[in-house]
């Protein structure tokens, strides 16, 4: 038990932060100013979660057991990477929020508690090793975010957005739960390892049920990452939500959803790569990816509100990332038939979430006096009047557009490289369409910089939200975009290392002897044997070849 708790230290820190904030807040002196304290406090706790995850990453390569709570949670390098990333997103959101929320008239302590809870949900989601944990953590995240979207209760747009998101989200939850029910029916287990073990030896007559299970699960995830045609909630929710919440959603939810999607795809469903399922999953994902990126980019072209434009841009990036999910390589631990995802998606997520955070943090500085000055025309003069925010916003746009030497460029490069490495001929059209999409996207990203720098300033005097923690959030994100962009090697290595560990959190030993011609006999043997604790020590750390 203690060991299980120790393995979940980062998650517990996040949970504690939220609970502490919620419980202590009523006892703080009245007045809004004192609530600003919660921003730095929760940010520090998120930072502590990152540190804990990093320390565990460092020690995790030893004979440390990484599965906790009966194989329902894990602290594999994969989980730790994503936990760190969502904690980073949480930290940035906490840093950029306090003054902004105050200016919006809703500077309450609950806001920070909700962000911490949502971060906790995300972190649990990417650490989940069973469908039950996955579903519950997804709900923890979603509930907190519904509240956050509608947090500016004085604004009709905000409340409406929260309501819409809630309705649509509950449909998605239903789909996911339904899909999981089918998975349970097929495998008789709820942990990923049990599901995978069952699917490896699935009988042909189960194909329809498997199809249904995959269909419903995929649909739910496609909804969460806002892929076409499940994307329509996103623009309304992004536009209506307070700007910092939009940044949190755009980066955090996407990271968590892709973290969980990759895991469920590779560690639960398709053990030996997508074709293992005998369902056209790879073809569907790559097609949905193309449609999603194209629709997202096309609709972003005409948006006048930068938040709404970024919502469509987020849809387009979901498309790029979906294409990245089909890139797989041989599992470095289990060997030949087993497949793991490449490092492209985790690496891309670093760049995407940092750029989103930087962009939305810069936009948050425009939220003075309850206003949301986020149409293009209102950006005019930002580069002159608040040069720092203008520069950060422009840098974020360049990174999202994928202009070197920003991180966004290397993200796209790695993604294309890995996808083409899977099947050069098959995915060449996809790669070309992705590049053409990037060209289209440059139009609306660069338009923002045009307004920031090249349009005459408006006559009216305009004030900006300025506070040290917001400046720090912008500066950190921008510095990271540039620094990792200039020296991407290490980050790519870490991302690849984590992606290759997608399955090491679960009891890989149970899977190893499922390979080979005598697999069915061994399955029977395993099934007959008394259920040993599925938690088995992780094999030797994966040795990732240097790119």
């Amino acid at each position: 038990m203690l060991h299980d708790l120790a393995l979940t230290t980062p998650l517990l820190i996040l949970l504690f932060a939220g609970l502490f904030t919620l419980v202590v807040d009523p006892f703080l002196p009245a007045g809004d100013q004192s609530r600003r304290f919660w921003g730095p406090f929760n940010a520090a706790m998120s930072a502590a979660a990152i540190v804990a995850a990093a320390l565990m990453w460092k020690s995790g390569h030893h004979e440390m057991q990484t599965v906790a709570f009966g194989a329902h949670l894990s602290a594999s390098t994969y989980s730790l990477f994503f936990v760190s990333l969502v904690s980073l997103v949480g930290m940035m959101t906490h840093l950029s929020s306090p003054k902004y929320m105050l200016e919006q008239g809703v500077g309450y302590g609950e806001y920070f508690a909700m962000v911490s809870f949502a971060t906790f949900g995300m972190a649990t989601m990417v650490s989940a090793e069973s469908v039950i944990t996955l579903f519950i953590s997804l709900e923890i995240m979603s509930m907190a975010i519904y509240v956050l979207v509608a947090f500016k209760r004085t604004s009709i747009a905000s409340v409406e957005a929260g309501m819409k998101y809630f309705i649509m989200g509950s449909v998605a939850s239903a789909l996911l739960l339904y899909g999981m029910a089918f998975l349970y029916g097929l495998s008789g287990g709820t942990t990923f390892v049990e599901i995978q073990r069952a699917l490896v030896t699935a009988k042909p007559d189960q194909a329809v049920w498997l199809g249904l299970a995959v269909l419903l699960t995929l649909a739910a995830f496609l909804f969460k990452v806002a892929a076409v045609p499940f994307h329509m909630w996103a623009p309304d929710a992004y536009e209506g939500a307070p700007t910092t919440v939009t940044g949190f959603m755009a980066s955090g939810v996407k990271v968590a959803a892709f973290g969980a999607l990759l895991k469920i795809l590779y560690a639960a469903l398709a053990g030996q790569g997508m074709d293992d399922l005998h369902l056209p999953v790879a073809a569907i994902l790559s097609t949905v990816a193309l449609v999603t990126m194209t629709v997202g980019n096309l609709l972003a072209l005409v948006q006048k509100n930068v938040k709404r434009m970024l919502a469509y841009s987020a849809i387009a990036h979901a498309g790029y990332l979906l294409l990245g999910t089909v890139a797989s390589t041989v599992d470095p631990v289990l060997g030949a038939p087993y497949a793991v995802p490449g490092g492209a998606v985790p690496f891309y997520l670093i760049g995407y979430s940092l750029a989103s955070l930087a962009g939305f943090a810069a936009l948050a500085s425009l939220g003075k006096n309850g206003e949301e000055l986020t149409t293009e025309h209102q950006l005019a003069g930002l580069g002159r009047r608040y040069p720092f925010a203008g520069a950060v916003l422009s840098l974020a746009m360049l990174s999202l557009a994928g202009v070197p030497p920003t991180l966004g460029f290397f993200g796209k490069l790695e993604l294309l490289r890995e996808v083409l490495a899977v099947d050069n001929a098959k995915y060449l059209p996809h790669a070309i369409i992705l590049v053409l999409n990037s060209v289209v996207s440059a139009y609306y990203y660069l338009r923002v910089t045009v307004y920031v720098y090249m349009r005459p300033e408006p006559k009216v005097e305009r004030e900006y939200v300025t506070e040290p923690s917001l400046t720090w959030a912008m500066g950190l994100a921008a510095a990271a975009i540039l620094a990792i962009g200039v020296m991407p090697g290490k980050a790519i290595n870490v991302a690849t290392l984590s992606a290759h560990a997608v399955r090491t959190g679960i009891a890989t030993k149970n899977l190893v002897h499922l390979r080979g011609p005598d697999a069915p006999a061994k399955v029977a043997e395993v099934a007959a044997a008394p259920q040993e604790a599925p938690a088995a020590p992780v094999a030797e750390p994966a040795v990732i070849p240097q790119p």
Partner: protein
Amino acid sequence: MTYNPSALLPVIVLLPLLGALFNGLLGSRLSRQTVYAISNTTVLASFLLSVMVFLGLRGAMVTAPDAAFRYTLYEWIAAGSYKFEIAFLADQLSAVMLLVVTGVGFLVHLYSTGYMHEDPGYARYFSYLNLFIFSMLMLVLGKNLAMLFIGWEGVGACSYLLIGFWFKDMDKAAAGQKAFIVNRIGDVGFLAAMMLLLAYGNGSVDFDHLRVVFSDSAHMLDHAPTVTLIALLLFVGAAGKSAQIPLYIWLPDAMAGPTPVSALIHAATMVTAGVYMIARMNFLFALTPHAMTVVMMVGATTALVAASIGLVQNDIKKVLAYSTVSQLGFMIVAVGAGAYAAGVFHLMTHAFFKGALFLGAGAVIHALHHEQDIRKMGGLKKKLPIIHWTFLISCIAIAGLPPLAGFFSKDAILAETLAFRPNTEKIATYYGESFERQARVKVMADKAPDQAKLAVAVKAERDAYVKSVEDLAIWRKVAFALCLLAAFMTAFYMFRLYFLTFSGDYRGDHHTWDHAHDAPWPMATALVLLAFLSFVGGWVGTPFFHNQFNFFFHWLEPVLARGEELLDGHMTPALEYGLMAASTVVAALGVTLAWWMYRKGPSELGANLANRMSFIYDALLNKYYVDEFYDRVVVRPLRAVSQAAFQVIDRIIVDLVMVRGPGYVLLGVSHAGRLLQNGEVQTYLVGVVLGIALLAYYLV
């Protein structure tokens, strides 16, 4: 020596960068003294550390004669088989360059504190100057060609910034642009060569790696034309940077910058980068006597042409500028003739005496309130004694009179040009397999693959190649003759400059004369030290007693070993001392002629000569009308073509058809797509249901 100085290398490089950043970002808020202190200290520290590296290298060479220090900061790019590292290499050649760059660099910094004392842009100036030192150190310490290229571009950018330092003057800004653009032409060649080398070196352009690649003949690409092409493309780059025909035209205009800049960048260091690069790549150049001959002849022609223009210029800095182009020509002749050590030796001595000359000229200009016309000078001997003496010493050095520095380096170039020849045997051995491949292709084409015939064909290939190399021998004599003539002109125009400036009577206005003052201490210190080096600097490379005491050449041997291995040639004492005597006589003749014509200021004789041969005189005065020629033949046609391309290709085809067209279409689609997003949850749910239906169609 127990410590390993390789860790000092990044420090040496980064110190000036720190200075540049500090002064560049905060300099405008700091006092002059602070800016001076920061910029000078960083470069001085770099120099002292360089001395430590030099001493460390000397110590290491006791046990390992080919010792070198290497330090990898990090792997910059590793994409597939391509690999670039931010890595530093300090071998014997780099060590020489390191000392010259930081040493002369520091003196120029010191000098500048006096020279720029009245300029309000001092922070910007010193920031650029530090940035230049940083770039130059990247160039000379780079462990691979890519690093060298980063430095190469960096110094180009700094040169541009400093030529146009007084950018409010349109002419000066234009001069900066000219330098930059002409250098870009050279860079195209350099880049193309680097890409070929990437292919050749399997994705690495590391010098150590390339040296191994080019010592081993088992390679697919290694036939003579490819190697020659690479060498020639590299030389295009060198010609741009080191101001050789036809790309020399930017250097005289570059004198628009502050004079210390001319001394440091456009005489002592940056412009010698091409020479350094060729010496660095000696293992490649030595393999291709054809390209070497081109290099040598371009150098010799440049030396002569620039010297002849220098004969009649009246601007003190212009004379020195053409003299620099001419001296660079000598260095290029040296590396083209295979006398790499002599080339680098002349590079070093030239850095001393040309540095002193430019700084002296700057001091004169400074003293005379920005007067640069030597016709309005004269008689400054008494008024400016320190400047006068240092200038005189440097003049003797550059004229090539013994025993000053220029004599030994120039003599080494002349002698080795005549004495060396390529070792055709060894070079042909390197290309052995490629001869065989070519022969095989030809024999197979005859449909008779028999061994005897093949052997004959291989021999024929080989003989044809050896013959083509041996036919090149005559060019060495031509180059030697051109250089000797250029050496005579050098002695003449330098002393014409000296006499017109310092002897005779003063010809300017008396207000200026009264205010003229000798160099203040920072300037004087730099002048005296450089003049001293111009005097004794040549003594490290004397050829007496069969090069017994030629420390400089022995020092460079480890780096140049491969290049020299591919050379033949023996220097007889008779040839050696005969050439010494000849070059002394030639130099003395030039000096005497100048003394006879100009010791009392501009003479009747000179004017008569100019009248009588006005055609030649005008051509020289107008620099052979090369700028006008380029303007008509290159610049204007290019501009016309660009205009046409802009109007037709860019405006109509690209902008309208290719950019706006799809743009409008996409925007239209976008507008249409918005209609679906109507804000109603019911519609959104229809989308979800539709999506599930589609998924179900494919999955179930």
